[in-house]
């Protein structure tokens, strides 16, 4: 126990500042400023792997490490879509995951946001569209922000989530 406590003390706080949002990642905007302000303070995220190669998941997991410390920003990963405000979806959407993704989307209460993750989630990536791959997340459910990259870095992922949450300039 002493070793554990000593270690916590020695390493101290390692969290870095969060990135700014990036309007280039915005796909559409449907929620009003007021709703976004309420959500922004305590956002619940449900992650859905709709067919990815598992590369994107590695970086999404990194968001919870003490350096990016996504919980420190008020953003929490939840186990059920019924508790979620935002869906973080990796792709390409496989044919076999289509129904599950639709069900998760329907189970998520309104108002809700969707962020597509990775080149595959944004446009099908290297797997393309065709055969058993349905391609981008937006082919199956509406997407509010898209974070490209293969896989996108945690910083880009954070920026994408914050973009979906922020009203665009002038609204």
């Amino acid at each position, binding site marked *: 126990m002493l070793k554990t406590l000593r270690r916590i003390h020695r390493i101290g706080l390692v969290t870095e500042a969060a990135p700014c949002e990036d309007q280039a990642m915005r796909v559409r905007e449907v929620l009003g400023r007021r709703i976004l302000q309420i959500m922004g303070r305590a956002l619940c995220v449900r992650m859905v*792997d709709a067919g990815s190669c598992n590369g994107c998941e*590695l970086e999404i*997991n990194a968001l919870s*490490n003490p350096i990016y410390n996504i919980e420190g920003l008020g953003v929490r990963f939840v186990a059920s879509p019924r508790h979620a405000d935002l869906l973080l979806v990796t792709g390409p959407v496989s044919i076999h995951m289509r129904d*599950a993704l639709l069900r998760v989307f329907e189970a998520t209460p309104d108002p809700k946001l969707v962020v597509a993750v990775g080149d595959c989630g944004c446009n099908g990536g290297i797997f393309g569209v065709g055969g058993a791959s349905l391609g981008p997340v937006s082919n199956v459910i509406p997407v509010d922000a898209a974070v490209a990259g*293969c896989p996108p870095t945690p910083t880009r992922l954070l920026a994408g989530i914050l973009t979906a949450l922020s009203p665009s300039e002038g609204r």
Partner: protein
Amino acid sequence: MNLKTWIGAAAPLAADPGIRRIVVGGEDWRRIAEDLAAAGGRLLALWGQDAGAGYPAVFAAYATAAGLLLAELPFEAPPGDASIYPGLQDLFPFASRMQRAVYDLYGLRSTDADTRPWLRHAPDGGYEFVRVEGDGVHEIPVGPVHAGIIEPGHFRFSVVGEKVLRLEERLGFTHKGIERRFLDFDVEQGCRLAARVCGDSAVAYSWAYCRALEDRVGVEIPRRANWLRALALELERIANHLGDLGALGNDAGFAFGLTQFSRLKEGLLRATEAAFGRRYLLDTIAPGGVCGDLPAAAGAALERELAYVAAETVALRDIYDEHAGLRDRFVGAGAVAPELAARLGLTGLAGRASGQAYDLRTDLRDAPYDELRAAKCGAETGDVAARVTLRFDEVAESCRLGRRILGDLPAGGVRTNVPPPAADSLGIGIIEGWRGPVLVALAAAAGGRIRRCHPHDPSWQNWPALEHAVIDNIVPDFPLINKSFNLAYSGHDL
């Protein structure tokens, strides 16, 4: 016939005499499997092809004491009644799912009884799970979407109270037609897709792919490039093990472990990015070598980082070992005894934790491991604790290997030109990834196109063993046991 006779009857594959190929009929297909199983041989992979690849056939790759043997059973007729081949499930239980996948994708049916679809789901999504009847037995369905940040799959538990009587897995949810997709690429571009079959094992897949290509065209990979490939492979192993060690602590209620290990992992990824230009090495290995050289300063920094990771891991291991709560959850949970592991063909990291002492880096000693001399890690108890121990040991060993590579990195170029392979030539590459042996079989078509590419993940062997590991454990221990195996979905679903 004994092992030697079969090996003698087979012909060396192109430029790689380490792999021998034998073309057989149905009877010999079965006899080879029997004789090799009796001689302690292991089935590495089983896959098929249809007329699109020239002719329909099934292939089986075996690892034996006398080397690697590839058995090929071609069919003349188009898929139909004539193309039924003898099943191998009684000899190698995990072959069943591979055979079902061969039927789903290529229409060739084995004689084994289980013919339920595996990678290609029924249009209505239905599936016949095996029912467990009895007093007080009920079923718990889980997935395909799981609670955490992990890949999708379905688990069906039959339980009494909290105790698991039976687990049945159903996979294939991330099936995205990777084998077909390979046909859209030439052999050079195919490497990028290979790296994305299973993103956490990108180095192992891209290296295995390159081996399958390079060996047969007889190119000599620059020594420096080979060492950098090994460095990338060991970095991939360390990063995954660190992530798992943290997650395993967390699943046993010790969030401190997750915080500490995920911090270490982040540091390693940043040093990796400084050295290779990216955090995850999805585009580092390419045909002919590696995609870029290491900046000298970043190499030195990476060496220091590896020393740091090694030292910190030793300190954290001490904390894990002394933590009564962790010991309580780890010891005895999800055990696969060595005899069962041998029968089930448990492979890779999980196999080594259950007394299956195989590691291609030390068994085959392909360059550069002939010079690097990796030490084989192992344990016997086969429980979660053993798989945790294995990860601690392998992090230490891989940090040592990484530092050795960085300290003695040979001078010279990092990439050489790879001529297109002859049409119809077949190559096989096998690499010991962090999870286990990754195999890629690559057949070329004219003009440097891909005729057929089959990537094989060790999870094919280990998923069925997980079903055994959880029997008689309690349902709340499943996430921990599952994590201790950490098997691939995408790599398996193709």
